[in-house]
């Protein structure tokens, strides 16, 4: 389903490009040995470079370079054998050097792409570049009445800025793109992708246009830190732009901020107030050279990426494209699935995980990885279904209390007394009793009222308090009524 905004003058298409800032998962900073641990006391994780002391010099952290290369490889991108660090100059109290070390003209990673699974099928989203840069510190405005306080723990942490082409066309696509990127980053371990902690955040470029016309003027919404907010910000901003254009005014290119409380975007600074960053090559750092051998070596060390896993899941487990996408979105989930699916019917496993388990998690607002649910726990229940000891329906009814209990499937089912009865003799006894108690119905059935079959099944199930194996009931009942 294409996404359009209905204006007074017709349909408007939304054109989106994302700049995602992903903090590299590394013990030390991009140019210093200071710790990157989250939540430390303010200004306790700061080396000379991170607080801009006179005579301090940056030294590149090779590990961070490797993470950027791995990320580049996993978004199908070119790795540039030579890249340059530049100084991006501006004054801000949480920017101690008075410039940010970034990459401008020659980034470490060039053109790439990733695939997202939309309702209309797969879509390729181009990636313009990925570059390395330093994070800034944090200005704290609410701790002191008169002063702003500065915490430099984050100053100098390594960021990857991943810039997409303007290929996204709806808030949903933007969300899918960020989710896909996040699952890749998490899979290779280059970033935790934790948006609450701010180690993944996005600048969203939004413009609108009439379908198939020229690109409109864009506004950039800075630092949006959740997928939900990204969608809300785009929806608000796109509508705002349509209203402005339809009222005969022009969009002014500017930087805007999203206010999640009011669910709106506000102007931060216009183009004329925009900084002149005076980028120039950082003379403290020689060009970053990466050998072909290094790239090959890192390529070999890549784990199975979400897309590769998806393809494998489709062929190995005969999953649908959609199911495979859902299960490979998160490394933890896909590992969980594979553990449960080992020697079990994969269709049954998929439906239990992607439907029952996911809706349980959603209802309780927890992530699978945060829950204490183990593959063994799910597998235990499924084995009862597979062996016919309990019915699918019974299992569904028991599912939530079972997950909340600390019991294994065997103990839980015994305790609840719900084990399915498949013993033919026992079931035959029940059937005989039901048929004896309803001679009229039996007669009617034999006279052609086929629909009464369901009535008999229901009665038998009722007699068995739901424990009778329906397949066995069906079989014997058919014989009896023949």
């Amino acid at each position, binding site marked *: 389903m294409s996404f359009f905004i209905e204006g007074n003058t017709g349909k408007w298409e939304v054109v989106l490009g994302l700049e995602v800032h992903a903090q590299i998962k590394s013990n030390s900073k991009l140019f210093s040995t200071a710790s990157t641990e989250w939540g430390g006391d303010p200004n306790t994780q700061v080396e*000379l470079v991170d*607080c*801009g*002391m*006179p*005579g*301090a*010099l*940056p*030294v*590149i952290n090779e590990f961070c370079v490797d993470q950027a290369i791995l990320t580049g490889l996993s978004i199908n991108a070119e790795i540039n054998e030579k890249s340059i660090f530049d*100084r991006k*100059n501006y*004054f801000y*109290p949480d920017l*101690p*050097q*008075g*410039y940010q070390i970034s990459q401008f003209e020659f980034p470490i990673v060039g053109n790439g792409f990733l695939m997202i699974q939309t309702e209309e099928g797969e879509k390729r989203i181009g990636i313009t570049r990925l570059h390395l840069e330093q994070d800034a510190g944090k200005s704290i405005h609410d701790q002191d009445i008169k002063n*702003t306080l*500065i915490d430099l723990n984050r100053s100098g942490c390594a960021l990857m800025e991943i810039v997409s082409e303007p290929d996204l066309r709806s808030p949903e696509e933007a969300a899918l793109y960020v989710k896909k990127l996040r699952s890749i980053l998490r899979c290779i371990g280059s970033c935790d992708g934790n948006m609450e902690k701010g180690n993944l955040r996005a600048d969203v470029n939004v413009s609108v246009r009439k379908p198939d016309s020229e690109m409109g003027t864009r506004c950039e919404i800075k630092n949006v830190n959740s997928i939900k907010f990204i969608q809300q910000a785009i929806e608000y901003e796109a509508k705002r732009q349509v209203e402005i254009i339809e009222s005969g005014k022009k969009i002014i290119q500017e930087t805007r901020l999203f206010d999640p409380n009011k669910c709106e975007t506000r102007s931060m600074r216009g183009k004329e107030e925009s900084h*002149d960053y*005076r*980028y*120039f090559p*950082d*003379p*403290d*750092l*020689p060009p970053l050279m990466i050998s072909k051998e290094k790239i090959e070596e890192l390529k070999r060390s890549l784990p199975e990426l979400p897309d590769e896993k998806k393809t494998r899941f489709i062929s190995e487990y005969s999953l649908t494209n959609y199911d495979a996408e859902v299960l490979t979105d998160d490394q933890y989930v896909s590992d969980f699935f594979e553990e449960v699916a080992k020697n079990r019917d994969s269709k049954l496993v998929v439906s239990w995980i992607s439907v029952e388990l996911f809706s349980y998690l959603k209802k309780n607002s927890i992530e699978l990885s945060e829950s204490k649910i183990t593959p063994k726990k799910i597998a235990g229940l499924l084995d009862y279904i597979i062996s016919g000891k309990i019915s699918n329906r019974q299992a569904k009814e028991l599912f939530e209390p079972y997950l909340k209990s600390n019991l294994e499937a065997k103990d839980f089912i015994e305790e609840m007394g719900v084990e399915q009865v498949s013993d033919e003799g026992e079931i035959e006894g029940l059937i005989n009793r039901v048929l004896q108690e309803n001679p009229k119905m039996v007669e009617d059935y034999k006279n052609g009222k086929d629909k009464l079959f369901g009535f008999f099944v229901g009665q038998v199930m009722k007699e068995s308090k739901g424990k009778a194996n329906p397949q066995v009931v069906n079989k014997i009942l058919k014989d009896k009524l023949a």
Partner: protein
Amino acid sequence: MTDFSTIDITEAKKLLSQKKITATELTEFFIKQIEEKKGLNCFITNTFDIALKMAKESDEKIQKGSDLGILEGIPIGMKDLFCTDGVKTTAGSKMLENFVPFYESTVSLNLWKNGAIMLGKTNMDEFAMGSANTTSFFGNVLNPIRSNDQKDLVPGGSSGGSAAAVASGQCFAATGSDTGGSIRQPASFCGLVGLKPTYGRCSRFGMVAFASSLDQAGPITKTVSDAALMLQSMCSYDEKDSTSSKKLIPNFSDYKKFDLKGKKIGLPNEYIIEGLNEEIKKKFDQCINIFKDCGSELIDITLPHTNYALPTYYIIAPAEASANLARYDGVRYGLRENSENLDDLYQTTRASGFGDEVKRRLIIGTYVLSAGYYDAYYLKALKVRQLISNDFKNAFEKCDLILTPTTPNVAFPIGEKQNDPLEMYLNDVLTVPASLAGLPAISVSAGNNNNNLPIGMQIIGRPFEEISVLAAGSVIELSKV
């Protein structure tokens, strides 16, 4: 008290090892000299207590005869651009008037490890921006050498305090830093030896940055032999400086075995510039003959882009400085003026913390990097810098060393050239090309002019060939022209 002001490090080392003198005696002597010659304003901070303590430690080591460093027991001056742990480091600026680092620069650390003794931090042009030591917040330095007409002269800059201190016998040697001539030019004005090593030879860690792609530490000494010892003690590969070189460090004193016979000395006609002082030109010609006498072959070479070196330098150095000095914002350390809001804090702090010359260069640097001007100025300057480098590369295919005067003029009176920055910048016209190319270059005194003022000659060598540069310098030194 014995007068140690007439001997050099090489001699002092001999006396120390023969136990004829002690490091403490040397230190006490220089402390007295520093106190007596306060009027020259060579030091911003004296560290006499530290010096005496270091001297005592050296004496103990010398007594034991073990763990002796190259400069064991030798008192020196440290340019106030090198961060010294626990000792105020100002870079000649009000901005850092009370700044006390809690870390040590690699160059100073290497010197202390080699047994050198710190007498104090020497005066300098503010953030090393100047050629006369007149931009220091702590006042100008006087050249101890007086002309026949008894005028007060500048010592040159930016390492003016270091040069004047060595020339007036307040220390054996001193560190300097050279961005466009800041070691060679004051050495030349004070009749000393100033060596700018190859870029990357000395670590820049802990050295207050002016222009990172040009800044290079080096020694100012009385003799070539001392320069070799000082450089040996200062340089190292340093993993804290990504531009520091891993090239093997030779024994620089081996320059004494380096034979100049048959070596080709290049004479670039572009350096005989308009406005070159006649007496300097005459000395230059005399030096040519000295090299002929030791069997070198003198050849004419061309460095065609020399004319563009000075403007190129005065784009690149201020551009880098504009970013390097952005950190002095009043937020974390250094000067902080009272202010109402953030912009006010930046403006008042930087307006009052920086002197005029620094401000001039920050404005130039900001301008040449600005959108719309970057290509025309900064980018073009980078390209010209490459051409200048190529000039040298081509020249060094034909010759082994290049001989030029160090400066177009001798030391000038205090107060001169103060109103015209361009005239002041012209002081660097002969030293800047080697800086842009990152080449090792030495200035050695070739004697005095008729007004008793020293004239310096510059020798430029191939990258990392400090030994041949020192060797050629010593030829001039020994000739007593």
